[in-house]
């Protein structure tokens, strides 16, 4: 059996030769020096940085702080706005890697803004799916609220689904009492899939200044330290909601990828791991088949069926 066949999976809008993709915000628009280190065509897909209607300058620095087995970030959705992305960023990426499925991360402060950004991106013909970021903890106008209230989350999903020409994955916030309720709400709103998890709201304090290290005070916690929370949430949601899940949250190794699958995931995104290991994605793609041999897993799509079928 050829490697790619064993790793291939099909999800709404996404025919992936392997399930590994950089997570939103950790790989820009593919326009960074990581691309010097491996061929982006090797990736299953790429999730690009959040797009908003207007350009956003983001949060004051410092935007990053380290924690034990984690990273706090408060970049604040800095981006040049959807129009520049459509005109300058996406065409470059799409032209350079015509076979690479692109998932566009959509953010906004109001429902109308989300809808407008989603509409424009999905109409571009350059993106295979949208990832609705209803969970970013680093914007103040209400970004977080969308992800913590089931009613609002459902309404937003529905509104975006009405305009989108490509499948919509909703990215859930872990900062909630009941993740299953949110997942069920966005499923009812017509989501084609879920992305989970976004970052946990955290803080570090500078002992010398006695105030928070991050310019934004709080930030989103990512990295291997949050993996057990991601696994738990994916496990719970996959048993309650019949939607494919793109898993993220602390994935570093092929073992981590398979742990996510066994929790109920259908694909994986890699964020923080890039910082220590810039070639995390191609490394995982290379290591997966060997791990699968050890664990007697024939193909990822079979594994999905086994895990999700056994619900």
């Amino acid at each position, binding site marked *: 059996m050829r490697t790619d066949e064993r790793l291939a999976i099909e999800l709404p809008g996404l025919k992936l030769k392997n399930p590994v993709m950089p997570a939103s*915000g*950790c*790989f*820009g628009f593919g*326009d*960074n*020096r*990581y691309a*010097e*280190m491996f061929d982006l065509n090797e990736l299953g897909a790429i999730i690009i940085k959040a797009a908003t209607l207007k350009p956003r*300058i*983001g949060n004051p*620095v*410092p*935007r*990053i*702080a*380290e*924690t*034990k*087995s*984690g*990273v706090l*970030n408060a*970049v604040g959705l*800095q981006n040049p706005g959807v129009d520049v992305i459509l005109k300058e960023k996406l065409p470059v990426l799409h032209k350079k890697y015509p076979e690479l499925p692109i998932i566009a991360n959509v953010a906004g402060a109001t429902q109308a803004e989300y809808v407008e950004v989603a509409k424009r991106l999905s109409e571009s013909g350059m993106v295979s799916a949208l990832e609705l970021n209803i969970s970013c903890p680093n914007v103040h106008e209400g970004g977080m609220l969308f992800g913590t209230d089931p009613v609002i989350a459902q309404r937003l999903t529905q509104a975006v689904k009405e305009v989108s020409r490509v499948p919509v994955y909703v990215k859930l916030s872990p900062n909630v009492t009941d993740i299953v309720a949110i997942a069920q709400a966005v499923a009812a709103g017509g989501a084609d899939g879920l992305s989970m998890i976004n970052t946990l709201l955290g803080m570090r304090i500078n002992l010398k200044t006695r105030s928070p290290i991050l310019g934004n005070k709080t930030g989103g916690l990512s*990295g*291997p330290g949050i993996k057990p929370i991601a696994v738990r949430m994916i496990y719970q949601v996959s048993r309650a909601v019949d939607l494919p899940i793109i898993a993220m949250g602390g994935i570093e190794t092929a073992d981590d990828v398979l742990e996510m699958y066994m929790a109920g995931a259908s694909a994986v995104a890699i964020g*923080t791991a*890039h*910082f*220590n*290991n*810039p*070639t995390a994605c191609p490394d995982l793609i290379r290591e997966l088949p060997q791990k699968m041999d050890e664990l007697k897993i024939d193909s990822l799509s079979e594994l999905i069926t086994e895990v999700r079928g056994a619900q």
Partner: protein
Amino acid sequence: MLTKNDFQIIEQQELAHDIYRVILHGEFNYAGVKPGCFVMLKLPDEAYQLRRPLAIAACDSVQKTITLIYRIVGDGMRLLSKLAVGTIVNILGPLGNGFSLENVDVGTEVLLVGGGTGLPPLMMLAQVLKEKGCRVSTAVGFRTASMIFGETEFERSGQLLLATDDGSRGFKGNVGELLASQTTVSKYTNVYACGPEGLLKMVQTRFVPTETAIYLSLEGRMACGVGACEACVVSTGEGTFNKCVCVEGPVFNGREVIL
């Protein structure tokens, strides 16, 4: 070309109080290194998620070594200082734009201004400028005598002016005051500075009104080091964070960057 390669520690030495020099041996794009470039060092402990940015203080493409000089700031640098000779660490680099070497020629007057851990990139710069035949003056500041390092290297390249905050060696005061105290001020073609924000601002204040080209090497809290995460932004225009220190810096035109 950017690589992440394993390097072996071949020397580890305390140069001054809490200041260490580590020499690493490994493969690298040595040809791509300019003074002011940096590397990101992965700490050999799984709890650390971020590589540490450190300037290249010297590099030798024949011996295949790079030299880093660092101060024990927090847990990461403390861990680094405890690594024995023989230990393997992973190095991502070379990164950053480096100092501009435009308009430097035999006899060109250049000034290097540095403080504390801003010195390592200036050490490599001083050597390169000296090799180009420039007349190099360096003004450096330390908190106190026990923290002084790099004297020999800077003296080898030209004139060294030295200040300590407490006056325990050299001029008593900071580097700004030291420069102000100089009665005969040369007309420098270029000034290169690296150090704390206060020092960089002083250099701006002092040289923006002059003809001197100003190159400031900035620090920034970094995650990726390659322009992927936008953690390390600075501004070259009001109301924006439009430049990444890691790829568009760390060296910026001192007349453009807003500190």
